[in-house]
């Protein structure tokens, strides 16, 4: 029996305004339990593809189906965004609260969680990325790697079963990279990870894709 399809992009075409076509006839399927990696030269369209899935930009052509429903307009994506955890490539894009605590609480509060439960979520999410004791720090004044970890924690706090992670290891120290890899081992997760770190992809994914001239192609992880 086949696993349920989560993300289904069909013949998607996209180009930024006043720029040549970037993604050409993109077909991509993510099924329940899939652990997919994406690698490829800078500017090949990896981030763009994730934005299309989250509905942050709209394709010129083709269809985006998520959780079995076609998504076209802004409001079609509301539940997509609640159920898929998306890590931006740039942590600064993700952080806007006056304290680490509020930063993590924001998602759970929007989902109707309250009081003790939220406190427990904050504690657990921080521990998972190794930021215990950072609860009252100001997000703007963290170091590059600390911001990355916090951004990851805000995603984990929403307990998504599906993840789209854009360069999750960017600027992280080695022990934290290991930690993230362990988090991804949790059974039942499905995800797409974009990364330039081949070792990390080897450890966390079962298939890796790349773009060649705007066309999605399987990537053979080179053996050393």
């Amino acid at each position, binding site marked *: 029996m086949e696993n349920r399809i989560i993300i289904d992009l069909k013949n998607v075409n996209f180009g930024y305004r006043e720029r040549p076509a970037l993604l050409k006839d993109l077909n991509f399927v993510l099924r329940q339990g899939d652990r997919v990696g994406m690698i490829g030269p800078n500017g090949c369209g990896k981030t763009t593809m994730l934005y299309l899935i989250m509905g942050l930009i709209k394709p010129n052509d083709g269809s985006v189906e998520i959780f079995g429903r076609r998504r076209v307009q802004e409001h079609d994506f509301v539940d997509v965004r609640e159920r898929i955890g998306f890590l931006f490539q740039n942590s600064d894009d993700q952080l806007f609260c*006056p*304290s680490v605590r509020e930063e993590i609480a924001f998602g759970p509060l929007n989902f109707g969680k309250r009081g003790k439960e939220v406190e427990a979520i904050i504690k657990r999410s921080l521990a998972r990325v190794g930021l215990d004791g950072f609860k009252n720090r*100001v997000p*703007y004044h963290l170091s590059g790697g600390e911001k990355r970890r916090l951004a990851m924690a805000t995603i984990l706090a929403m307990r998504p079963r599906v993840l789209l992670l854009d360069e999750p290891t960017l600027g992280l120290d080695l022990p934290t990279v290991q930690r993230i890899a362990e988090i991804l081992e949790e059974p039942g997760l499905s995800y797409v990870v974009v990364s330039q770190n081949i070792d990390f992809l080897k450890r966390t994914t079962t298939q890796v894709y790349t773009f060649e001239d705007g066309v999605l192609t399987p990537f053979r992880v080179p053996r050393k």
Partner: protein
Amino acid sequence: MHISEGVVAAPVLVAGAAAAAAGCAVGLRKMDYQNTPKVAVLSSAFFVASLVHIPIGPTSAHLVLNGLVGILLGWITFPAVLVGLLLQAILFQFGGITTLGVNTVVMAVPAIVCYLLYSRIIRSRYAAGAAIGGFFAGATGILLAVILVALSLLSTGEQFTNVARLFLLAHVPVMVIEGIVTAFIILFLRKIKPELLGGDIR
């Protein structure tokens, strides 16, 4: 919030331009090459923030934030508003160049008043004081701007009495929302960058 092109009489336009020029002269004296980038980047953030639409019941209103601008920029508000309006005239055509002066006055004078009235309470040791100051700065900014618009319409001619009345009424909910959002922004800034609330950017 602004006065449309071709509506108010020439004397009002001229008076507005003169007042704006005087205000800008004061403001520019407080600016140097050190703080110009800071003033500019903050102004552009305000420029963007004024495009934000906030829901009020079934409709939405866009923010004006002139009270807050005053608190942050002090007298530099004048040149900052002038440039912001000039940009709007060039990029969006919300207004044009003949009303540049009046509209600068409409926005900047209330901002300066808020700066003079509320700066101290906003820098209070107590969060509640800062929040209340923020609320009043937001609301006063709108209230005075609306009054100035009404006055310039009325000094053009009494035919505008009804327009001015309608304009005042329509802005009551906006005043409240501006007050609330400004209070939250003040609380946020005071926690992370209290230096910003000092009123003069160095």
